[in-house]
């Protein structure tokens, strides 16, 4: 952990809900390279506050890469240019002294801007509400050991379940699609026996909801997988497509 200080120029998107937004330029000075990107924004905000200006609004909470709150386009990349990183886990050692950075909110039709870098991602909750769960009531579960699951399937389900719901996949997609997000949930349950009873209805309902909420279609750009801080694979989209077709052809009893 070498100690080094750098200076940056930031072009930051400032916007109030319902109004037009614009970029404003700020200096980030004397930034320790061990600081995280959000800690760098904290320093900028402290200075803005002290000089009588309103700090930049940005969403954040756990600051350890798991809650999915944070996210912004940094130089055009969701969560910045590092692989498999959330914005809070991007560190200033990834930048050079004198860098000029553009920082703007996730852009997608389904994610309206609330303020500055904060967008409304509640559409993702609506997708989950339409079927992203196993409908089991508390108290009605069988003894856990009666459901053995092949390790490979459990591991693949976990790979899919690692999604943090940050919305970077949507923001990175040229169509603003939520296919990676939705497919991760569909995949998790399609791989597990617990998901079987609702398998067909789940994929159908979730895809319908996704379409209704203004998310775009998938045209196999794979930008989502590059943007995903948790490395969710596009093979889950392929599985969603298979599940979707199967749900259409499944005979009604």
């Amino acid at each position, binding site marked *: 952990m070498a100690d080094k200080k750098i200076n940056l120029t930031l072009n930051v998107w400032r916007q109030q809900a319902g109004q037009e937004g614009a970029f404003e330029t700020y200096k980030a000075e004397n930034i320790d390279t061990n600081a995280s990107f959000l800690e760098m924004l904290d320093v900028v905000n402290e200075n803005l506050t002290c000089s009588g200006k309103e700090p930049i*609004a940005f969403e954040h909470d756990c600051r350890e890469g798991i809650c999915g709150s944070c996210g912004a386009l940094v130089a055009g990349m969701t969560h910045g240019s590092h692989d498999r990183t959330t914005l809070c886990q991007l560190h200033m050692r990834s930048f050079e002294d004198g860098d000029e950075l553009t920082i703007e909110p996730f852009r997608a039709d389904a994610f309206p801007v609330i303020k500055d870098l904060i967008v409304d991602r509640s559409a993702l909750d609506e997708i989950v509400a339409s079927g992203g769960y196993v409908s089991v009531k508390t108290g009605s*579960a069988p003894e856990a050991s009666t459901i053995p699951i092949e390790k490979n399937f459990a591991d693949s389900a976990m790979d899919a379940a690692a999604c943090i719901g940050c919305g970077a996949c949507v923001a990175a997609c040229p169509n603003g699609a939520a296919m990676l997000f939705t497919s991760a949930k569909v995949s998790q349950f399609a791989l*597990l026996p617990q998901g079987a009873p609702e398998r067909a209805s789940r994929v159908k309902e979730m895809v319908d909801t996704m379409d209704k909420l203004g998310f775009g279609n998938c045209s196999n750009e794979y930008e989502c997988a590059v943007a995903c801080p948790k490395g969710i694979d596009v093979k889950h989209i392929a599985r969603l497509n298979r599940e979707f077709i199967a749900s259409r052809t499944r005979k009604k009893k």
Partner: protein
Amino acid sequence: MVELNANIPEGPMAEKWTRHKFGVKLVNPSNKRKYKVLVVGTGLAGASAAATMAELGYQVESFTYSDTPRRAHSIAAQGGINAAKNYPNDGDSVHRLFYDTVKGGDYRSREANVHRLAEVSNQIIDHCVAQGIPFAREYGGNLANRSFGGAQVSRTFYARGQTGQQLLLGAYGALQKEISKGTVNMHTRCELIDVVTIDGRARGIITRNLVTGEIDRHIGDAVVLATGGYGNVFYLSTNAMNCNASAAWRACKKGAAFANPCFTQIHPTCIPVHGDYQSKLTLMSESLRNDGRIWVPKKKDDKRLAAEIPEDERDYYLERKYPSFGNLVPRDLASRNAKEVCDAGYGVGPTGDAVYLDFSEAIDRLGRDAIEARYGNLFEMYNRITDDDPYETPMMIYPAVHYTMGGLWVDYNLMTTVPGLYAIGEANFSDHGANRLGASALMQGLADGYFVLPNTVNNYLADLKRDSINISHPAFEEAEQTAANKLEKLLAVKGTRTVDDFHRELGLLMWNECGMARSEVGLKKALEELPKLRDAFWSDVNVPGSGDDLNQALEKANRVADFLEFAEVMLRDALDRSESCGGHFRLESQTEEGEALRDDESFAYVSAWEYKGVGEEPVLHKEPLFFEEVPLSQRSYK
């Protein structure tokens, strides 16, 4: 006047919960929909409680300050969740989990509550598996277990290093299921700013819409606080940035006693502090202590790199001092020992406030792949933050504030001293005593939410007389006015220092005087400093912007204002409890070997503090603790 009645059911320990479930009053299914329950917080406890009560038929209103319920900080729990399944056949049982938890809590928890926790632990695993949570599995397809500090059996279920995330997403899924049916009405970006009591009962809450600044009144038949702990009173902690004590503190100001506030947990394995810009500390799961060995150089101020220090010049101090538990001693011991070696000058790293957590032996024994499979994501996270590769060089770790065992006082039904007001999960004090064992927080949050509260809330609601009270009642009017005035006052100061600046100062004061080691002198000094800091805050804080839109500085200021009041109760509690126990170490009370010295004669009680006004001395009430099943003894992990 606060009265403490724990309402512990009669009968043998192992039958109390079963008898109680039969004894509580029920609300018949068609009447349940007539009752409304307000649940604040959507972490493990809040989401599971809201979903389960909605399944039962109650009308549920759920509140979170986040943009979605899935962000709650339960999501960051890494290691796992305990249950007494005994799948590994290593001698575990409900009684052993109960015993370990009471002992691990250093005999400051309520036996009956802990026994119930151990009993329902197995149902939690059943339920979570049925939800499709991808727990780790053996090759044969069965659930895998690992061991955790403070236990000699493997009873921890896990989903890689993301157990909290997976369990929370399970509860969140259940919540979304009920939202889609219309049985839960979800309020996101909505923060509690006061609790409303009418005729001594909790009847509602006041909230602020964090996007529009609108202040709203919500009425209900019961109010449930699932609002987490108060670790952020220290500014730097492993808690998420938004975690706060405001809901619990506002409840305390409305008559709910606050229990054991001095019981805070300092987690032994966190990434050390490295700069004054630092906003939070990151935990490295305790599960790492399964395979990592903790050591410092035998020589003081040894500046050599870890690799240059030969084996015989390393002090594996936990293995040396506690041969039977070794690196897996409970958290309080592991933390205190790290502080001791660092204070004595053996610490490593640029600040000297760190010890090594070394995986080289485990990598030699099991191979890099096996270690990667177990801890890959944790190693990656460590590498991201520090730029060091733990496969090559040992991790550097240091203790950090992590969890708060104290919380709102609750009886066996999880009801606070205000009728109709419940506290669940980390927000209450009930199950962990003076020290929480690893993988027990997830267990307790889900036990309270899925299995305990939905059974005990009936008992209160069944007796409730219907009335015509609505949100125009003067109590709502007054609570809204008080909360709104406070926000206006914060905005009006327009001083010179930022909210974070005050929060950092408060945090440092608390860490120095009420952190890993506490003394009468230090605590008294802090009690003198605190009111000055509070006055400085109210005369010099700078909260930019207005109250009519999204204003993060205002949110933060409102929370820090509460921390500045709450901290006083914490200091008073730490001063009152002149014994050492669990996470509470009083320098005046230690054995000749420097171990914590408990004083059961004088302190086998729960302290419950009654609020009397800002700057006024709170009143201490005591709930005596009785140990029938787990005989009191000085803890030994040697």
